[in-house]
């Protein structure tokens, strides 16, 4: 944009410009690029935490990784978790935003109430969930019992545990999505609704379909990307509530990375998982942004 101007700049101006961007660059290199590069290099070695020697083994870790049953299980679980959590929290967030915006009273209260899970520490909240989900004395099962349903064990049942965690994930991120959607709703000009009404969009649903939903395109795209990345990073609830169990049914990518690197001390192997994780997150972001650029209507 301003590239030609830079060429016209005097040497003094250029030096000043360099000096001005250098803190940002330094922070980027020290905090992001450097560690990422280090992780990549480590992933090509057989280094174990605390070991005195380190050998370069090329792609050995990756070969082992792609043949590892646990890795694929973990990868699949992470994908399932995302596929449940992202739509769940995006639509719940949208629904909440619409309801609260349409409310005639108590908006501030509801906004705060639904935003609370976002501000609380997930580790602490996971402990609260543990009590709620306790098979015999937990509130959830006691309530279910009142209506004649046997709740069972939410976290120890292998076919259910991952979805229980996804439910907690939705609860945690719906509030943030709600706030983002509210910001999106505020930016829709009121005259569009009036125009739609004149054009015959009489029902609330028609107005939503013709005006609100398309106008929320950029917000929806952003919310989906952020939710996707956040749910790909799920770790806290797994660590506190299930430790990846029972039988790896809630093993997710970051948890596998953590156990390999910090419980089994196979640092090189853990680094390889991190690289895979970074690649997936990057690919997801690029894909969604690219797809979004074409289809999203930037009002």
């Amino acid at each position: 944009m301003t590239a030609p101007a830079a060429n016209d700049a005097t040497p003094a101006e250029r030096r000043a410009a360099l000096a001005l961007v250098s803190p940002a660059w330094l922070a980027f290199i020290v905090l992001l690029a450097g560690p990422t590069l280090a992780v990549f290099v480590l992933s090509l070695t057989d280094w174990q935490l605390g070991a005195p020697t380190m050998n370069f083994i090329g792609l050995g870790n990756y070969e082992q990784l792609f043949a590892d049953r646990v890795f694929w299980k973990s990868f699949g679980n992470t994908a399932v978790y995302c596929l449940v959590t992202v739509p769940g929290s995006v639509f719940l967030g949208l629904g909440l935003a619409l309801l609260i915006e349409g409310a005639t009273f108590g908006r501030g209260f509801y906004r705060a109430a639904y935003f609370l899970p976002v501000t609380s520490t997930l580790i602490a909240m996971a402990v609260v969930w543990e009590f709620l989900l306790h098979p015999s004395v937990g509130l959830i099962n006691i309530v279910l019992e009142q209506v004649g349903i046997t709740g069972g064990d939410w976290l120890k049942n292998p076919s259910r545990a991952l979805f229980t965690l996804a439910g907690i994930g939705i609860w945690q991120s719906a509030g943030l999505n709600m706030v983002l959607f509210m910001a999106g709703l505020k930016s829709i000009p009121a005259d569009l609704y009036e125009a739609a009404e004149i054009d015959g969009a009489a029902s609330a649903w028609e107005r939503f379909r013709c005006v609100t939903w398309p106008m929320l395109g950029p917000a929806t795209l952003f919310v989906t990307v952020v939710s996707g990345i956040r749910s790909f990073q799920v770790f806290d609830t797994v660590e506190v509530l299930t430790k990846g169990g029972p039988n790896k049914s809630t093993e997710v990518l970051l948890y596998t990375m953590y156990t390999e690197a910090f419980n089994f001390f196979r640092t090189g192997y853990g680094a390889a998982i991190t690289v895979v994780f970074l690649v997936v997150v990057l690919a997801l972001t690029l894909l969604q942004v690219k797809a979004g650029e074409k289809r999203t209507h930037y009002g």
Partner: protein
Amino acid sequence: MRKLLGVAALAAAFVAGPAAAQTEITVQYAIPDIFKDVQEEIAKQFMAANPNIKVKFTQPTKEYEDATQQVLRNAVTGQLPDVTFQGLNRQRILADRGIAQPLDPFIAAEKDWAKAGYDGALLTLGQVKGKQYGMGFSLSTPIIYFNADLVKKAGGDPDNFPKTWEGIFALARKINDPANKITGFHFDWDITGNWMWQALVFSNGGTMLTADEKKVAFDQPPGQKAIETLRLMITDGGMRDVSQATSLQDFVAGRLGIWAHSTSRLGGVTKQAQGVFNLRTATFPLGAGADSRLPAGGNVAMMLAKDPAKQKAAWEYIKFATGPVGATIMVKGTGYFPANAIPAKDPKMLGDFYAQNPNHRVAIGQLPSMTAWYAFPGENGLKITDVIKDHLQTVVNGSAKPADALKKMTSDTQALLPK
């Protein structure tokens, strides 16, 4: 201002003066909810007896796993503690990486070592490939805890507690009372490092690997019997698939009849059971007579210091903590037993304690069957324990037949062993 600073510096130098002659050593330990008071008392008494050595604790870690993790991280950053207390099955990692210092030269330099009370068999628990890396501090063994009130109510005799699993399961079925939320039996099979799995295999006369550590040996008859027993705990003993936290809560609340766990909790559970129910202990069922073994649990003191002066101080501390004085403090504060033979024989130290606490004496009776808590060799050693745990879980939740699970567990473990 400058003058003021000068005075302050002078004062600081004066205060620090006498301390400069001291050697300061840092000590790290795990599981503060069991060991905090004990460790601090030992350090206090040690410093009173050795005024020239100052002991400083680093932040204790919650579990043995974190303790090893912290030492390995410290090894990278060059901030190793001088003495660390590590789980018995973690010694191998620190020894193999050259982080821990062998203690043999220090033992050789001791004049009256033979009279120091370190029993030969118990010393082997701290050895890795024939070298002494750890000095046993607090040892534990798997035992049976039971609620004597519930046992009596079910028609059992607390003084003649069953010595076989069959007997225990039969009794557990009688105790089982779902209407009143009382469970008969629980076995904490998922204790870290496959400890209870090792107990089942060793007590049937088996081993984890062959003597050359090249091949899996738990697929042999003792292992087959062990995995069948694990399944029978559910089908015959009425055990539920619950976490260790749940079984502990149930037991201390008087809602669990028979509980197989480590002696490490004996101190705490005794306190919690007081006034709630009559707590008793019994020996772990041994299925192979004289060939039966039980894994020792607990932790050892290891030396990480490299500087000779610090090494000397660290060795003094290790001897004190694992010796008669430290052992006496430790036993009275926990349920563990010591790796030093002197205090149990001295009525002033622990002799009277054991006479008055028969529940603690059961573990001492199991001493002859004690063997090392096995750590798998190679870089996948810890991953193997995780693989085994996963397969055991399939037996406990009934999703796999015991024989099939054992077969898979064998092939998965074999694949992770060093070639």
